[in-house]
């Protein structure tokens, strides 16, 4: 691989044939476990050991990986995603022989080049040239082989004039470029990559993207850890979602991506539970307001386009002559997008509700919302056209995920066509 960029005019649709399920295995991971012992009180000096030799050393066990098993086929581009602290980086570090697993087995075919975080373990006191040579030898090349590659590495990183500068004087962008080009030149069979794509200017990013496509079509086995679902969906044949040290989902990248988005908002979203319970002037009380999925489970996230199923519960404390319940869906800027409502009738069909009645409201609305956080405001009017006796601001909120980022507030179904007219045609 002399110059990966020039060699390849970036085939943009790079869904190279997926390595066959029965193909040779490049990485085999079996029931991998790793726990970190986090001392609640760190003993860092002899004095503490000597003064309190029998003081119980308290540890909190953090299970970073809890029984992970998977295979990666040769030539496969395999993505690992997960939230911060899910254990994905630990997994990569164990694969790269930087950490030792507590239990489990890893087998790997061919030479491995790990690229963990930015900088692939450079020594900032040394120049770029020295670091590249050192790194090559660490990766298992001979010093001669490394020196032969030196020039192309520096050139790919576009750092020709800075090759003899100590890395401590480099900008972070330059460091990343150097790290990335070292990786590109490693010529290993298996590459482990942790979050290196997000940096560098646009032209270098394009260069990286091209290089990835090149590696992919060269049949290298690549394991990529990232937060970026777009990257996963663009490059990976398969992806794995790790959550709490376990495999949550493995397989199709798009599906894994959806699962990941769901997971991302599942915990992060707080509902306005308390604000929902309000009593209006006419005695009607909003007890609860929430969203459901198709199976009747409460949710706080909706995929773009998934119908909004809104539920609310109210109680009438005093007899009320006619109630109208209305909802407004507003976006994060507080802009009301649309509203809908219903007139409540008592069981016998009369408009007057007896005291103590409970009312369940359920609405199903189509969902044209763009991704982002949205709020539900709920209002109750004592009789039609009358004053709003109760208005619950942010009775519930939810997040729309998926879909392309949009400048609009709604995402509508569309068909766009562009026709280029042939010259001279009438």
């Amino acid at each position: 691989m002399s110059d990966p960029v020039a060699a390849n005019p970036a085939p943009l649709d790079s869904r190279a044939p997926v390595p066959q399920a029965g193909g040779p295995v490049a990485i085999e991971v079996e029931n991998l476990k790793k726990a970190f012992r986090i001392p609640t009180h760190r003993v860092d000096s002899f004095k503490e050991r000597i003064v309190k030799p029998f003081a119980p050393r308290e540890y909190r066990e953090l299970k970073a990986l809890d029984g992970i098993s998977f295979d990666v086929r040769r030539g496969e581009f395999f993505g690992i995603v997960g939230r911060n602290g899910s254990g994905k980086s630990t997994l990569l570090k164990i694969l790269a022989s930087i950490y030792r697993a507590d239990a489990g087995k890893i087998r790997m075919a061919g030479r491995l080049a790990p690229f963990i975080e930015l900088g692939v373990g450079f020594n900032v006191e040394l120049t770029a040239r020295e670091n590249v040579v050192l790194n090559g030898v660490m990766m298992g090349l001979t010093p001669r082989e490394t020196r032969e590659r030196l020039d192309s590495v520096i050139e790919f990183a576009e750092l020709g004039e800075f090759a003899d500068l100590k890395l401590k004087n480099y900008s972070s962008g330059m460091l990343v470029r150097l790290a990335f080009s070292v990786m590109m030149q490693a010529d290993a069979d298996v590459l482990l990559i942790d979050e290196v794509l997000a940096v560098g200017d646009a032209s270098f990013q394009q260069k990286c993207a091209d290089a990835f496509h090149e590696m992919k079509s060269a049949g290298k086995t690549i394991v990529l850890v990232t937060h970026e679902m777009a990257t996963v969906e663009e490059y990976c044949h398969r992806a794995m979602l790790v959550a709490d040290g376990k495999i949550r989902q493995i397989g199709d990248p798009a599906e894994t991506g959806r699962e990941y988005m769901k997971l991302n908002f599942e915990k992060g979203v707080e509902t306005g539970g308390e604000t929902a319970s309000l009593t209006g002037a006419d005695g009607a009380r909003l007890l609860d307001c929430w969203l459901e999925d198709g199976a009747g489970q409460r949710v706080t996230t909706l995929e773009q386009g998934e119908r909004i199923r809104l539920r609310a519960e109210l109680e009438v404390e005093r007899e009320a002559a006619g109630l109208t319940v209305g909802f407004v869906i507003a976006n994060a800027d507080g802009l009301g997008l649309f509203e809908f409502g219903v007139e409540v009738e008592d069981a016998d069909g009369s408009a007057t509700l007896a005291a103590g009645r409970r009312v369940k409201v359920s609405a199903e609305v189509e969902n044209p919302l763009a991704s982002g956080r949205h709020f539900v405001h709920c209002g109750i009017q004592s009789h039609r056209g009358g004053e709003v006796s109760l208005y619950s601001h942010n009775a519930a909120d939810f997040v729309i995920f998926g879909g392309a980022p949009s400048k609009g507030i709604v995402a509508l179904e569309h068909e766009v066509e562009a026709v280029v007219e042939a010259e001279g045609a009438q």
Partner: protein
Amino acid sequence: MSAPETTMELREVRGPSALGGGRRRFLDLLWLMSVTEFKRVYFGTVLGYLWSLIRPLMLFGVLLFVFTQIFKVGSENVEHYPVFLLLGIVLFTFFQESSTNAVTSVVSQEGVVRKTQFPRLVIPLATVLTGAFNFCLNLVIVFVFIFAFGVEPTWTWLLFPIALALLFVFTAAVSMALSVLYVRFRDIAIIWTVVAQVLFYATPILYPVDFKEGGDFEHLLMVNPLAVIFEQVRIWILAEPEAPSIVQAAGGWLGLLPATVIFLAVCAFGAWIFNRDAPRIAEEL
């Protein structure tokens, strides 16, 4: 893919270790790291290598003055006291500098340790090897002195490398132990400064082993493995007829036993503790 098909078989990944990853790669890496570090020090400052020479020479000048003009310890007991003193200082500088640099070596290479996979043992050993390069340069100065003071070359000079090898092994073992212990106990840095200072006086550098009449002091001194090595160097290089052999100084062959045991114990401890801690260094940092 250029890799031959044989390397594409599944092999078990055992995680980080002290050694491992092939002997050739280990040696390449060790050599490269030592040379790079040596060059860095050599070219990093204005006076470069001179600094590593000036320090032992300054010490030498001061001690020479004190022990020949004020205390007269040296001049009365050793034929070529200045050479004896300089040789001792240069040997000890190697031991002290290498081990002191080794203490923080693993921690200061944190970036490399936490992000790449390579035999961990390379780090402290590279520090010792860098020290050895310095030592070789300093040795040139020592030999200039040796000839200037008219010490006759003898065939025993050929045995000098044996003593150096022993010193190297001892220094490496101490460095290995210190470098991993420092990861968990930061006090080691301070403790080691003090211990090294004590060792300097407990080794016959300023004074010959036999400067005091009566054997008890000599015997006690010979418990220190460094003292045994230094004394043997004196015999081999300076070839003084009246200098006691290490067996005499220790009061018989049995007297050498403690030093031998300590030497082996330190080596075993260094190897054991480094090997034990190496797999988890990256996590402890």
